[in-house]
């Protein structure tokens, strides 16, 4: 595993996400950190292998806490949602990696800094994240949709995306597919008439 301590020492605003062993980089500093990681002789992370978007919905959790007087009190904890962009950097020169870099932003206005000026290979992958998650990459030279057509308005990989209702038949529907397929069944009264 690569020692991340020198990066954290050099850039104090960068936080370490221990669970994912990732660096959480603020947007303003992202370009500088990436440039340093690429050029520093001890790291030389010259290859951005992977750019991924991560969408997390806000979570509302209700827990019941026993009060001293015997009644239950409900405590609602809200966890805000977030939109993340995850980069995995490798070094081809020194044969090590990966270092995981995360930029965290809001779901309402997802804007992050593009690393395409540092890693040219990130260009299409950032376009894909823009296409499917709607994440804006500041400083990207050509931010257009790449997989869906230009007229498309939705962001299909977002958790709250609703796809067009364009299939009617499913041989063995279950769960969400069952709920969707049921909307296309004939009305209950007519189907019982047909059965009788």
């Amino acid at each position, binding site marked *: 595993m690569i020692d991340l301590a020198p990066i954290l020492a050099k850039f104090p605003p960068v936080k370490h996400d221990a669970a994912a062993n990732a660096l959480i980089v603020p947007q303003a500093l992202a370009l500088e950190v990436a440039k340093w990681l690429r050029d520093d002789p001890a790291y030389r992370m010259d290859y951005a292998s992977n750019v991924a978007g991560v969408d997390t919905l806000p979570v509302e959790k209700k827990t019941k806490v026993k009060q001293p007087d015997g009644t239950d009190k409900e405590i609602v904890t809200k966890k805000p949602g977030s939109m993340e962009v995850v980069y995995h950097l490798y070094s081809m020169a020194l044969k090590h990696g990966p270092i995981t870099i995360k930029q965290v932003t809001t779901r309402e206005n997802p804007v992050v800094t593009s690393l395409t000026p540092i890693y040219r290979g990130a260009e299409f992958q950032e376009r894909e994240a823009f296409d499917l998650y709607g994440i804006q990459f500041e400083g990207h030279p050509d931010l257009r949709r790449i997989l869906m057509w230009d007229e498309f*308005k939705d962001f299909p990989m977002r958790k709250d995306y609703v796809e*067009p209702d*364009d299939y009617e*038949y499913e041989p063995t529907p279950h769960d969400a597919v069952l709920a969707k397929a049921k909307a296309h069944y*004939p009305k209950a009264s007519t*189907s019982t008439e047909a059965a009788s």
Partner: protein
Amino acid sequence: MTLLPTNTSFAADEGLRSELQKAGVFVVSLEWVYNWGRKSSIWPLGFGIACCAIEMICTAAARFDLSRFGAEVFRPSPRQADLMIVAGTVTKKMAPQVIRLYNQMPEPKYVIAMGACAISGGPFKQGYNVLKGVDRFIPVDVHIPGCPPRPEALLHALMTLQRKIENQRTLGSDARRTNPAYRGENRECPIPEFGEHDLVPPYNPEVWKPHTIVREA
């Protein structure tokens, strides 16, 4: 093989015909000769859009040898093709181009939908970006299930199509009534537009209607 198509009104003495055959004289209708020529030289349009295309190429190559059926002449231009083999997943982004190719083919034209994706959307059916069957936009003559179908299945589809061509009326007053290619009407399929959420319209009501499913809820 019967020399006369089953739907001809041509009446000839069976015994006389078989006697003549022994002497090397064949009595058939002109339509039979015409259809025999058509079914034995189906020129497919050479395009593949996903992994089914690999099976299609394999079918055309030496081991399975599509040329046994006279259908090995894959044309690079829709203007010279009779048959469109939709070999693979049709994404919504690709659909207008596939329909445009179909429109550019001359009559009479046929379509084989090859594989699970082309007939129904296959494993991508519950997704947002794949057409749930190419028959939503263009008329399909033969559907082949399979993921991907084996070359034998494609050959079977071709033979099924040959049987269809064999029995089509091409001459006489019946032809206009029974063969859509001879009706003289415009068989161009409208090309859908890219909409904000889906293709507009999502299917061509001329060729496809949503199924009504009767099932206990």
